[in-house]
């Protein structure tokens, strides 16, 4: 196990390094610079700015400095927001995105599992159709449309909830709903199909035949195996949602870090692009690592330290 973790750790470092390098060179290969603006056309002012942000250094030197900044996790000041360092943007935005993301994931997982399980148990019954209709609708409505709709209905027409901003618990309800619906729908569908498959297995019949209580059969024997595909998608889903989503945060004016991913690129704000990319990829790689560990816990047949061929 320890050996596996160490091995995975080095692979994580290598992955992040490759991602970081690719990002750096892609970023510099697109035309336009962070200092590009219709106004600052005075060459001297331009030169002063370039010097200030070390953009006049040759690319290899910038690359080395950039690698240094990754190792020390200090990405320097943002170019578009000179008051802030990239670190402070992340420190400020991430907890908020994380909080919203965590609540949304919890809502999505709990309601998704319940819907999916109900649908599988009542296969081809009314509940099944109902649950799957909800799931299909949830998957097909993009979350920004749902978000606008929720604001229109609950804030605009009914006036029950605040439309936007991040000022207290009641402000969390609409963004959570908007953010959780998609993942919930995916989880519900996955749960249903893997549940259906698991429920026909011999060991479930065996468990039932032994006279185990239905609750125990479902949760102890069926659910545990049915969870495998869900855990698989959870890694990417968590990384995506916990680091903030651009559209939901924009629509609800939530000061998370989602916007920096998108805006930094259209602004060519190099330090922010680098900071957010490295942060996100580190987070993602870590989540995938966690998922692998959870596999082992859920299914003892998967042994982490075994060679590929022997596992599963």
């Amino acid at each position, binding site marked *: 196990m320890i050996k596996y973790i160490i091995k995975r750790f080095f692979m994580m470092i290598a992955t992040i390094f490759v991602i970081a390098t690719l990002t750096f060179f892609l970023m510099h290969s*697109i*035309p*336009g*610079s962070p200092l*590009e*603006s*219709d*106004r*600052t*056309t*005075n060459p*001297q*002012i331009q030169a*002063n*700015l370039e*010097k*200030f942000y070390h953009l006049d250094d040759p690319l290899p030197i910038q690359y080395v400095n950039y690698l240094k900044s990754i190792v020390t996790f200090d990405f320097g000041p943002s170019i*578009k*927001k*000179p*008051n*802030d360092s990239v670190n402070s943007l992340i420190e*400020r*935005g991430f907890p908020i995105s994380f909080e919203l993301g965590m609540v949304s994931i919890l*809502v999505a997982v*709990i*309601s998704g599992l*319940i819907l999916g*399980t*109900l649908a599988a*148990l*009542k296969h081809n019954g009314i*509940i099944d159709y109902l649950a799957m209709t909800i799931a299909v609708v949830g998957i097909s409505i993009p979350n920004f449309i749902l978000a606008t709709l929720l*604001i*229109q209905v609950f*804030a*605009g027409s009914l*006036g029950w909830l*605040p*439309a*936007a*901003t991040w*000022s*207290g*618990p*009641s*402000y*969390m*309800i609409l963004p959570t709903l908007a953010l959780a619906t998609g993942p919930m729908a995916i989880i519900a569908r996955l749960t249903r199909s893997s549940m259906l498959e698991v429920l026909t297995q011999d060991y479930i019949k065996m468990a039932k035949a032994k006279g185990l209580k*239905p*609750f125990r059969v*479902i949760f102890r024997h069926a659910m545990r195996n049915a969870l495998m595909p869900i855990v698989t998608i959870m890694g990417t889903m968590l990384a995506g949602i916990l680091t903030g989503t651009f559209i939901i945060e*924009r*629509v*609800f*004016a939530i*000061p998370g870090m989602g916007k920096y991913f998108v805006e930094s690129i*259209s*602004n*060519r704000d190099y330090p922010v692009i680098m900071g957010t990319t490295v942060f996100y990829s580190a987070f993602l790689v870590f989540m995938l690592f966690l998922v692998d560990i959870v596999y082992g816990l859920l299914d003892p047949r998967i042994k982490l330290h075994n060679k590929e061929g022997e596992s599963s």
Partner: protein
Amino acid sequence: MKKWLVMLLTVALFMVMAACTANKDAGKDSGGDKGKAVEKVLYLNNGVEPNSFDPSVAFDAVSWNPLNNLMEGLVRLNDKNEPTEAIAEKIDISEDGKEYTFTLRDANWSNGDKVTANDFVYGWKHMLEAKTASPAAFLAYEIVGAEDFNMGKGKFEAVGIKAPNDQTLKVTLKAPTEAFLNIITNPSFFPVNEKNAKTNPKWFAEADTFVGNGPFKLTAWEHDAKMTFEKNDQYWDKDVVKLSKVEWAMVNDTNTEYQMYKSGELDVSSVPSEMAEQLKDDKELSNMDQAGVMFFRFNTDKEPFTNEKVRQAFAMSIDQQQIVDYVTKTGQKAAHGFVSYGFVGPDGKEFREEVGDLITPDTAKAKALLAAGMKEEGWTTLPKITLTYGTSPDNQKIAVAVQDQLKKAIDVDVKLQNVEPMVFMAESKENKYQFFRSSFLNDYADPVNALESFITDSSMNRTNWSNKEFDKLIAGSKNESDAAKRWTMLQDAEKILIEEAPIVPVHFYNQLSLQKPNIKSIVRHPVGYMDLKWADKE
């Protein structure tokens, strides 16, 4: 057997939901204390976090709309868009128009310190220092020695900014610059409290350390989320200030902003473009001029726009009025010249109205001009034409309309090409495109600001167009101390520019907003930043 399981799960689901709602409702009322009768709180939206409150650093509306209400320079634009005495109590201008002597009034910083002439020297020096890399520094280039100092050459002692005593600031200009008082209403000319800036080099980054001298003070700043301004009791003209508080939200999505306005969470909102037509006649809609113009540039080095008659033919095929009426539909004025509305000359007349419409659609003339131009060049068919614009739905709508108008008027097929905005900006500066969308927003309130973009080799020219007479008129206007003569020179320059058609104007900009009927006297200038000094909420 399954029945009770279903029930159990349902109960669990309800419990989870109930738990969530109970939790979330608990703090529901924490947000608004609008109800209080005495306090006048204005709820505004800044869209996003201001980029910087260092007066020298940001050069954008999101920073300067709020900052303009936290600080004050020597002069301030009044509700008629004229620069009037603010921190300066008296302004003496020498006969040759080059020496400005400002006598400061007794004014305090929000921390109680006196505002001294030295605070201005300190702030202006900070803007001009090469290491600050201020994008606004060029605005000060009319001051003797400022350009050299900004380039890193020469000492600050050589710059024409002096404070002989605490109450007096003397500024020496290179040439009589009529717009100078207007230029220094710009936030980059605000003073900086030297003592505070030395103890907290990042004084402008947080509410705790921010020291201003304007009508309001910054009392809370939750980054990326909101700001609170309160009336500044130290402000010299505090009796005029009626609002007790301004709450700024940072909502970037215009649809959300509009919903918040509808539900009363905001007092002022921008207009979502999808709603513009529906709200066209709304009583709460306010439409103000903004000095700036959207236009197309022709690259005079790329065929067929090397030929003046061809350029004119294209320019005359574009129907500006049709574009604002049926395409943009957001209340802009059609542009039949390059200088926008809002500039009043020495004779009290609008520049735009005095010059009149320099270019209007004329299909017959356009056809004749195109034929004549092609004959001059010996072309039987026109070279391929591509119209380029930065990717955005609004830009695309206009480009499609222009494509259609050109086809109808002079039967020319134009290919449309959209490019990612940053790439577009970089490549249009490199003169890569043939026929492309452009826009100009005034930095200060004077026609010369717009027109001088097109002098030979200006970095704003981007058309390769060059005209000696035009250059001479612009240069002459900068040294002319007779206001009436200067005005005529600028009007002549504009006529040449439109006549030779390296560009074709489409529409002027405007500031469209929704405002609750009980909100009064928010001042929005054609050039300049939002002013809440006189604003009131009834």
